[in-house]
């Protein structure tokens, strides 16, 4: 089955977060925290069915963001960050790299 990697990147400070796929919670973290020197907090590898899917990320007290995943390409990489108090996300087809 194809998968999507959700990468939690900048701006998290011991946050509680969850990921829902088509309304069902598929991943959660009770203490999401960004390592600022690599701009990375955690990642969730989520298997997704064929076709489009609705991915939603919620960070308690900080907001939520949802995105409709296209049917292709897969795998897909979703970067989620908290920037200026706002939850943002972007998609790319290449893996993320950190340094």
């Amino acid at each position, binding site marked *: 089955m194809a998968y999507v990697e959700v990468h939690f990147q900048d701006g998290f400070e011991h946050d509680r977060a969850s990921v829902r796929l088509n309304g069902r919670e598929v991943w959660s973290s009770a203490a999401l925290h960004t*390592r600022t020197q690599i701009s990375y907090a955690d990642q969730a590898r989520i298997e997704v069915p064929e076709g489009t899917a609705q991915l939603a990320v919620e960070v308690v007290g900080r907001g939520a963001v949802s995105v409709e995943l296209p049917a292709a390409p897969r795998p897909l990489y979703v970067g989620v960050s908290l920037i*200026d108090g706002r939850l943002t996300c972007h998609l790319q087809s290449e893996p993320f790299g950190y340094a």
Partner: protein
Amino acid sequence: MNENYPSHEAGGAVAEIDLPLQPIPIPIRLTVSGLYQWRPPIVIHPPQIPPPIPVPIPHPDPGPQVEAPEAADAALTPLPPFLLRREELRLDVDRTYAQMTVSGTSFLGLSERVHWIASLTPAGVRRWVGRIWYRNGQTALMPYTAVTVQAVASLFPSQRSAKVTFSGGGATPITRTYAYVSPYFHPVEFEFDRVANAVAVTEIKTCAHPNRPAGLPCETLSIDTVYRRAGFDVKSSGGSGVIPVSGAGANGTWSDAEMHDAMQVYWSRFANKAQWAMWVLFAARHDMGSSLGGIMFDSIGPNHRQGTAMFSDSFIAQAPAGDPAAAAWVERMRFWTACHEMGHAFNLAHSWQKALGTPWIPLVNEPEARSFMNYPYRVAGGQAKFFADFEFRFSNPELLFMRHAPARFVQMGNADWFDHHGFEQAETELEPTLRLELRANRNQARFEFLEPAMLELKLTNVSDEPQIVDRHLLTNSEALTVILKRAGRPARQWVPFARYCRKSEPTVLAPGASLYESLFAAAGRNGWDLAEPGNYTVQVALQRDGADLVSNPLAVRIATPASRDEERLAQDLLTDPVGRILAFDGSQVLDSGIAALQEQVARFPAHRGSLHARIALATPLQRDYRRLAVDGGPTPASAGKSGGSFVTVPARPDVAQQQLQAALFADPDRAAESLGHIDYKYYVDTYSEWLADRGDSATAAACETELGKTLAARQVKPTVLAEIERRASSYAAKAAKPKRG
């Protein structure tokens, strides 16, 4: 000599002037940038000639004792060297990536120091003028606001000097002549180690890849040279070598802990202290896998930023498909990664992170910077666009930070990682016409446990001209940034429960005049960041007209709990509802917070914290209170749809008066100290006004009179006392007026 790596260019001395050995070009370009030093002249006293021995030799005189001559000698004894003043100057005007900046550090004794920075503009041959826009430390040691620099260049280092005149700020101008020390601003030592299965890249041919800036000089560029151009006198620790793969444990990949252990074993300079030295490890792969190209792994323990690592077997070794020079691309990425991770060890944040974390003052991100600190693949257009413009350098704000920030922010093992990192942004200019002061209304900013820390801001016009400022500039607005730093912990930004967006009310601030505002920084949306026992540093930045005004750092101490009961009560008091109730002067809604404050008053009536609790509990009782009642389910859509309506909670004036009287006048001096002068006056004024509205002008007059006496004893300025006296007189006159039947 390290045999595992290419040899680097010769030490910094040869780069001191842009002067090759043969032939000598005419004219010779002499530079003056670099480090200078000043010490007070040593006074040599003439030798003490002993008085002639009288003849005959007298016997000891048993008469009255006279002062021993040693006392006079002692007065002539030079002070120990550590008590003498020493000053450093960093002049940055004409070498690589000149920042047109001069900065200085004055040391007095073992602990006192002040750091300042000024931007320069040319004013003649090797002469510059500029305003001091940044101060840090014991700012009383540096009252000046302007500098004039006159440098003397010479082929001979011993003949170089910089004469600096400090002026402005109401102080008598002084001139110092600093002696030249080095073309570099700081020393640093690098030690490179390589794991046996890893590739180390410490130098690169800049033109090996065709995608590069058209004007990029073709050269063999080493990491050492990158940092020399950034202003550091780079040396090698000399202990570089090869580390066995077994150090990474059974899995062959490296965790941060394994690298930290390896650093302690293999780094010849390892020590738990701040030092201008770092360890650089070239390894194959991190536990995190190929997605991690490198990391400044040393963000644990008491001394951060001493060790960094690069992973040669990671995504940085995967050139884009179809790249015309894949091997050169990989080499360049490995070189970029090494310089990038080492930049973190200098406390540089990622280019897009400048405003994140705990920056020293508000920052602006540089997401498109062509800097070692930016990810090439993160900019618009991706890595190809990045490298097309990348000149193997740091951005100007980053260079400003590395060269001119207080050394402890930059030096490895000193300030914690990401703490003070943001200082480097150049737009943080200090407005020299205004001075922002942060203080507490007590001799030392020491607060009892559970006593909300009330601070005060004072904005003073220190120029000779009237200044127009917004009357509400100091209230909780977007312009105000408060940083709270608990000793041993990362700094945090205070986030108030509410920010006020007010219509600007321009007001004229005469020379010497000030605006004041209280600051309840104990709690905010981040929680109670200034409430746990310990030592804190608090500093405020105020943005005005695009410039930032930075206050003095204020040392604050929160005392330890006086009893186990206080500790237990803290669990109920240091909560979000109580923080909101205190911030907004009361609530009729936040029931758990109200109950906690009531318990505090009941169990600790004499505690300073109970002063604040009484006011917060009493204020909503002074008048009828409109409360929104919503009878909704667990997720009400809106108050309207859920049948919400306003209900009126009747005032309880007798209870309010009893509580306010106890809070404000049981011990007025203590109340003024704990609440702060600004808030104490505010509470008494509003209370007396309320009393007068209820027809009790006599008590209102008595309150104002007591307020005046209390603040007079606390040395509050006469204009405030005069205003209080006017109010007291007005209420007294009203009370004396016969009421109409």
